[in-house]
Structure formats: C-alpha cells, structure tokens
C-alpha cells in the first residue's frame, strides 16, 4: 500500500509543484472545498485516529475539538517545526523533499478550525526547508489554492513563516506561543489551555509538521483508508522513523504504524553496523525510556510502546550497540536537557546540573554507593516542574536505573567505566 508522506519524494531533490499536483496533490483540498463542511473535515481527522506526531501522541481530532466554536475574534493555527529533540530529524527530511503536503494540510486544518491566518514556526538551521515552504506558499497562492478566496470560495487563508533563533524549549507549545509573540519563550501556565487562550489570547491549535502533512491524504482517501495503513488495530496511518546510531543505513523512513522494532532496524536500516550486537535503543527521541533486545518484535504504535514502558514519541530511534556505555549515553542526554532548560523553575534549573554532576562522577570512576538512590530521588521529584522538559529529561535516566542498574553499579564498584 502506498504510504502518504514520502509518496512524492524524489531522490536528492524537492518535488515540484506540478509533480505534486499530477500525483494527486491538492485533491484533498479540492474535495474539502467542493462539498465538505469544516465539520466534515474535522470529523474525518477524528475518525482517522491520527495522533500528534510531535512526541505527545495526543489525538489530533480531539485537540481540534477543544477550540470553542463561539468565541469572537481571530483564532490561530501554528505548525510546530522547531524539532530540536536529539535523534529526531523527520521534519527536516520531509520538508526538504516536499513542502506541499504541509501547506495543503495546514490549509485544510485552517478550514476545519475556522482559522484565517496560520504560522509555521521554523527553527534556525532549517533554512532549506524554509525556502521550500516560502516558494510553495507562493505557488499555491498563484494557483488559487491559498490566499484570498481559495478555489473561488468565500474562504481566505494566509500562511506565514516565522524563523526562530534556536532553543529547544520553543518546541513546547506555550513557550512557542510566547516566542511567536516576541516574548521570552518560557512556558506559560496551563490552564488556560492554548485551545482557549493561546496566541494573542485567541484560541490556538499547535500541531507538528508530520501531523499536519497527514491531513490531505486523510481527507482525500477517507478515515478508514488511513486507519487501514497501520499493521495492527491499535495503530492508524504511517509514521516517519528517523533512525540514527549503530545501524548500517541511518535513514528517515516512512513505515506503517505497528512495524516492529526489529523490522525497522533489520528491514529498513540494513541491520546493525559492523556486525555489532543490539544493546538498547531510545525509540522516540531524547526524552524516552530505553527499549531492550526483548522488545525486538514489539509493534511500534503509541499504546504498545507505552505498555512496554517507553514512548513512541517523535519516532527518533537512536540505536546503541554492546560497545556503548549507557551511563555515558544518559549523561549526554542529561547534558542536553540541562543546557536547554529555560531556567524558569528551580527544580529543573538546579536539579539537572546536579544529576549531570553525579553521572559524570560515576562515569569517571568516582561514583559512591548512595548515588543510585540520589538519582532515583531526582527521577521522582523532577516530575514536579513547571513544564515537561525536566520530566522528559528523567525518562532516559529512569530507564537506565530500571533496566541497566547493574551497569551503573559496575561503574561504582570497579571505580571506572567497564567499557573503557
């Protein structure tokens, strides 16, 4: 079966507007504007079972349904293209090959939500993606598929690019809203939730690139078709898995949801690098728990991965082999989160550097007996922070202590890294 997101991809270049249209692009948009009500579009997305592809995995149709219908004043849609989660590079690959699915998907989302003006929030470093989008937006406007009176209808929709200057916390939806408003991007208190009071105090939906890029095919082919793409009844649609680390071919691949971990590594990525043995992986970007060899045949869908004690997250699969020290890997992850903490609340600002210090000592052979207990306390208490960054940082540490405590202890007992 043809999967929707990479269907239009050309090797090493971006698909052209004409190619995209010839291959069925903008058919979803045409279908929606010639006979579907905004409600119909929203219902199709809800029925499709599409879940947020940015990391949290919340049902997209439900998120949309939280926007009150009767509030006066403008409402907003923001596409989150901040993607700074280590190991995650799907939005880059998607947009460097095809900006049109996102443009069409956003237009459809605006139609469904009654939004007149939407933003694409792009991180610094994604200049090529931004250029593709800017060109695509102009092309769509010229063809009457965006801008004033889309396809001759009464609906007008604008898309604007907002280029950021690089900071992980801007991917958090309330921080992102502050960033777009030109304020210091600390997260905001919830409630009020963005769906009610977000950008400039108006109702706001924030969706990830991959989420929105799925919408055209859902509208064009129907919810049942989308559901049927998945390999198991728990899932719906396809997923971009961006694999890095110890595999032969590191690649961003589109696979049906429910593909097993083993099939991703062996099938799509040619197996492990240099004949190395699989030790563990992080399946969904830096803020997820480790999966182990026993999970080799685990179907990768949101619920099944959650039941196995991790998260599908962003789909950034980072693969470790037996030569990798997982204490050092966790230290690397914590270092990232400590550096990217926005500094707003004390447990995160002070706690992450402390965890980093302890892990550094352990890695360098200066760990002490009660360090493991102290780390466990942090896993527990760094759940009580202002936003999800610190709890996210604790996920790999929690996984390390749960699944690889022996390896941590060996460091402390042997007074050195056993792998060095």
């Amino acid at each position, binding site marked *: 079966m043809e999967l929707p997101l990479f269907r239009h991809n050309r090797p090493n270049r971006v698909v052209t507007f004409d190619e995209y249209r010839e291959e069925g692009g903008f058919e979803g948009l045409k279908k929606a504007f010639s006979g579907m009500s905004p409600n119909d579009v929203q219902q199709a997305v809800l029925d499709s079972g599409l879940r947020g592809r940015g990391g949290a995995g919340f049902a997209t149709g439900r998120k949309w349904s939280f926007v009150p219908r009767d509030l006066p004043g403008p409402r907003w849609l923001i596409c989150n293209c901040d993607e700074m989660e280590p190991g995650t590079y799907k939005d880059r690959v998607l947009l460097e090959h095809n900006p049109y699915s996102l443009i069409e998907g956003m237009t459809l989302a605006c139609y469904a939500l009654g939004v007149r003006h939407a933003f694409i929030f792009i991180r610094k470093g994604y200049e090529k993606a931004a250029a593709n989008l800017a060109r695509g937006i102009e092309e769509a406007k010229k063809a009457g598929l965006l801008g004033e009176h889309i396809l001759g209808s009464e609906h007008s929709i604008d898309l604007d690019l907002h280029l950021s*200057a690089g900071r992980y916390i801007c991917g958090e939806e309330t921080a992102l809203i502050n960033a777009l408003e030109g304020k210091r991007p600390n997260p905001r208190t919830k409630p009020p939730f963005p769906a009610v009071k977000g950008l400039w105090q108006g109702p706001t939906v924030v969706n990830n690139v991959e989420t929105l890029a799925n919408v055209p095919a859902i509208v064009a082919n129907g919810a049942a078709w989308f559901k049927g793409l998945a390999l198991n009844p728990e899932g719906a649609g396809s997923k971009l898995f961006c694999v890095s680390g110890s595999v032969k071919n590191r690649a961003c691949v589109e696979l049906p949801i429910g593909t097993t971990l083993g099939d991703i590594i062996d099938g799509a990525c040619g197996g492990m690098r240099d004949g190395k043995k699989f030790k563990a992986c992080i399946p969904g970007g830096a803020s997820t728990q480790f999966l182990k060899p026993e999970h080799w045949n685990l179907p990768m869908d949101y619920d099944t991965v959650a039941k196995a004690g991790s998260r599908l997250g962003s789909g950034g699969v980072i693969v470790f082999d037996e030569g990798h020290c997982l204490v050092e890997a966790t230290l690397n*992850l914590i270092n990232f989160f400590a550096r990217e903490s926005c500094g707003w609340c004390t447990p995160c600002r002070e706690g992450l550097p402390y965890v980093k210090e302890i892990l550094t000592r352990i890695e360098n052979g200066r760990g002490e007996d009660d360090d493991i207990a102290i780390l466990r306390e942090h896993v527990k208490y760094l759940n009580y922070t202002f936003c999800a960054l610190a709890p996210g940082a604790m996920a790999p540490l929690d996984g390390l202590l749960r699944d690889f405590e022996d390896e941590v202890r060996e460091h402390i007992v042997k007074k050195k890294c056993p792998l060095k």
Partner: protein
Amino acid sequence: MIPETLKTSLEARIASAITAREAAVDVMKELQAHYGWLTDEAVAEAAALLGLSPLQVEELATFYEMIYRRPVGKKVIHVCDSISCWCADCDKIIQHLKDKLGVGLGGTTADGMFTLLPCCCMGMCGDSPAMSVGGVPYGRLTPELVDEILEAERHKV
C-alpha cells in the same frame, strides 16, 4: 548607527507583523548580520525600532542560541554534541576542531575567522557527526573532511 536602507527595511518588516514585538527575532538577526554580532548599540537600536526597552531585547537576545551577545569570528562553527552525534564519535571531531583551530569551545581563532561553539542536535542525526559553518550544514564528518571544509570556508566569501 545603521544605514538608512536597513532601517527602512526593518521598519517595513515590523509594520507587516501583527504586533511589532512579533518581529523581534527577525530584527535581532538582521542587526546581527550587519554588525557581525548583536552589539550594545544594536540592542538599543532594536529596542527603539520595536518599541521595547533595551532590557526586554536583552532578555530575548540572551535566550537564543543563534544570537551572539559577544564578538564572534567571521563564521561561527556550531558542532553538534547531542546523542546521535555522540554515537558517531563526535568527541573526536570536536577535539580535532579544537586542535586544528587552536581554540577551546567558545574561542575565536587568532585571525578572527572562526568561532567554535558546541550545539544541540541540528536535525542532521542521520548524517552524524555534524556541524554547521556560517549557517551551512555539513554531515558525516571525518577529521580529513573537517580540514577540507575549513579550508574551503576560509576562502569562500
């Protein structure tokens, strides 16, 4: 003082935004491109253009990775030290950069050409280890490739 043409284009950018503040990052970036880094003077100018206090601009400027509040070389090298690059031995690449440039992280080469900074994941994990030089991304780095890139970037205007 910034040239009149730059001022006019920044004013136009601000006018096209929904609120002036929304253009803050763009304004800082443009001024940084003009001065080479976001000087105190640039902070004051941005504040005047945006209708903010210099302190409000300062709290934005110091938040973002790509806004430099201290002088930097002609081209900034951001070398990724996040997890996928770690798997791909980025430590060796970072050490090589330090040796080759004769500076530590945060340092600027004696000729004022390069500033070396570590950075978080840049979405090049599939092509790790990765760095960007003056905004141009490079992946699958080896020490030899790093040498070639530095040589080429040194002469590229």
